[in-house]
């Protein structure tokens, strides 16, 4: 174990180097460009054995990854925002063909208008594609999560997206503990694909026409495989904790034991909220934080257990569903809590779209308001757009 200083992008590139995938195919996009840029230097300097393919679009990037993964390779790529949107149709191809490709992603808003800063609209727009999704709160976690995700993906044959927040994590330098190359290699082990197109003794066809007769059974089987991801994740995260001393649950709770209210959020904002919680506790206000880290598959029982113990919870969503019903985390959490024996009053704060800054005073305000909800025993405003001009 050694301690180094790296930005989120550098940390992810370093994890990729230690994973040493067979193939990386990518197209540059701000703010994720650096990840493959740095990785391509590892390739050029002979530090990895990877075939690096500089393709002409993200559509081609993920398509090349699909080909390489079908051939039995360990495959990774990286992108953000419009790049993920352009990969959209191939996301389904990868998942449907059970190809455990891993994307090191930086969350950035989707156009229009054009914006290069953080929100979660890109990955939240791909929730139904059949990919595992992990949202990281800092560079250390981004490094660790890529290694964990790769192992879970390969064991379950489910592809994975590991993401950080644009610029806030991707470009900010942090202290980081990294494993030795051999430790990472030993941890992830050799990749043994379930099926490979290059098994010449047993030739196979992938992705052919599948109509009313069998399509549904095949989709059902895919959904069934997906339902095993959380269990595998918990096991692999535990193994990783034993190796590194760092444990990452699918859902993280921070100072929630005796709390009446909590914020439920993701990414770097959760780390900021921890500071706020510490400050509130010094004032004797018992408030907590629940951080969603895995949002695909949904850790349903964990969410019920964690949120069920509060009187009120404010979800903080960094994207909107355009359903006129707040953000995706709020919407899905409401669904999860519907049949919970104990459930909190639940409100939603959509915040930080297009990188709008979220600071301690904004988060404090949310805690103040959620405390008010408990006092009144009812919610006045279900969905709030935090810090938008003309809103209040």
């Amino acid at each position, binding site marked *: 174990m050694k301690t180094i200083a790296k930005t989120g992008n550098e940390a992810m590139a370093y994890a990729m180097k230690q994973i040493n995938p067979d193939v990386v195919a990518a197209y*540059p996009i*701000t703010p994720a460009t650096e990840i493959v840029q740095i990785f391509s230097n590892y390739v*050029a300097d002979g530090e990895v054995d990877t075939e690096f393919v500089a393709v*002409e*679009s993200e559509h081609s990037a993920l398509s090349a990854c699909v080909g390489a993964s079908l051939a039995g390779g360990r495959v990774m790529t990286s992108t953000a925002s419009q790049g993920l949107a352009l990969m959209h149709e191939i996301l389904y191809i990868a998942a449907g063909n059970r190809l455990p490709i891993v994307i090191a992603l930086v969350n950035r808003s989707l156009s229009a208008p054009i914006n290069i800063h953080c929100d979660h609209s890109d990955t939240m727009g791909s929730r139904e594609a059949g990919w595992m999704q992990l949202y990281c709160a800092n560079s250390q976690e981004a490094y660790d999560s890529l290694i964990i995700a790769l192992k879970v993906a390969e064991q379950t044959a489910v592809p994975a997206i590991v993401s950080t927040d644009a610029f806030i994590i991707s470009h900010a330098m942090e202290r980081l503990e990294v494993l030795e190359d051999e430790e990472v290699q030993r941890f992830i082990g050799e990749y043994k694909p379930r099926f490979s197109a290059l098994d010449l003794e047993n030739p196979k066809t992938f992705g052919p026409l599948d109509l009313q007769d069998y399509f549904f059974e095949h989709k059902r089987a895919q959904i069934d495989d997906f339902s095993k991801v959380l269990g595998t994740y918990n096991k692999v995260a535990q193994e990783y904790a034993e190796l590194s001393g760092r444990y990452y649950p699918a859902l993280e709770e921070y100072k929630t034991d005796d709390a009446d209210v909590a914020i439920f959020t993701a990414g770097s904002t959760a780390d900021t909220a921890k500071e706020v919680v510490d400050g509130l506790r010094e004032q004797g206000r018992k408030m907590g934080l629940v951080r969603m880290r895995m949002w695909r598959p949904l850790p349903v029982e964990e969410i019920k257990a964690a949120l069920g113990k509060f009187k009120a919870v404010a979800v903080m969503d960094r994207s909107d569903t355009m359903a006129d019903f707040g953000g995706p985390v709020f919407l899905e959490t409401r669904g999860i809590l519907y049949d919970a024996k104990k459930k909190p009053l639940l409100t939603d704060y959509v915040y930080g779209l297009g990188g709008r800054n979220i600071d301690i005073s904004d988060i404090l305000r949310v805690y103040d308001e959620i405390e008010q909800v408990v006092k009144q025993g009812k919610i006045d405003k279900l969905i709030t757009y935090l810090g938008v001009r003309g809103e209040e």
Partner: protein
Amino acid sequence: MTPAKASSRKTSFSPMIHSYLRMDERFPHVWCPGCGIGIVFGALIHAVHELKIPKKKLLLASGIGCTSRMPGYLDADTFHVLHGRALAAATGVKLARPDMEVVVVGGDGDMLAIGGNHFIHTARRNIGMTCIVLNNYNYAMTGGQQSPTTPRDMFATTAPYGAIDDPVDACLLASGAGAAFVARTTTYNFVQLKRLIKTALSRKGFRLLEVVAQCPTIFGRLNRIPTPKDLVTWIKAHTVTLEAAKKMDAKELEDKVVTGVFVDREVEEYSERYARLVKKVRNAH
């Protein structure tokens, strides 16, 4: 849109140029000092002005990239769409409003990599628009990755030992696809640049103008030609006219960029053909 007021800023631009720019709303611009994009933008404004194309009839569209930032600064109807998709979006504009003078600008990556498919098919259809490909030999906006036009052995961040791919020739591609007008020039030759934009604007069908331009900040630096002056001089040194090229053999032409007009022919513009079809089908019923 309100016309830009003459700015209070003291600059050496002429008031004519000012009147086409959103000086108060959008300046300062993002481009680096010495970048070739400003030269192409200036030539485009001069051409539009000299041809007396009313601002109301002008539409400037782009995808994403340094070059593609142009529509943000022009005081006319403009749009900035997705990376690589400007020609497709502009096709929609031209079909809906055949009276508009449609101009599309983009970098070599935008037009020939991610948008390469649209490039071929827009040229094939010969829909009426002027397409200016600003070829700075790299993906400048994202930090200098190799693009489809990076010359062999030149450096890019994804080609640290020099590019091994053969580059694509935008003019040959457009000619092969059937474009009505195909020409190439460089930022070194402002007079020819302006003249070729004017010619392109006055032709019908799909008009491609490739402009080899300097990106000193990234391409220049990676290739050890970091000053704008040296890079423009380097561009000039690698340029030959079509006439001169005719007398040179393949070996001599190996590292040269040929400038001039490659195709200039009359075609029936696509939106006219389309309107004719609509009329015919409607009359038949």
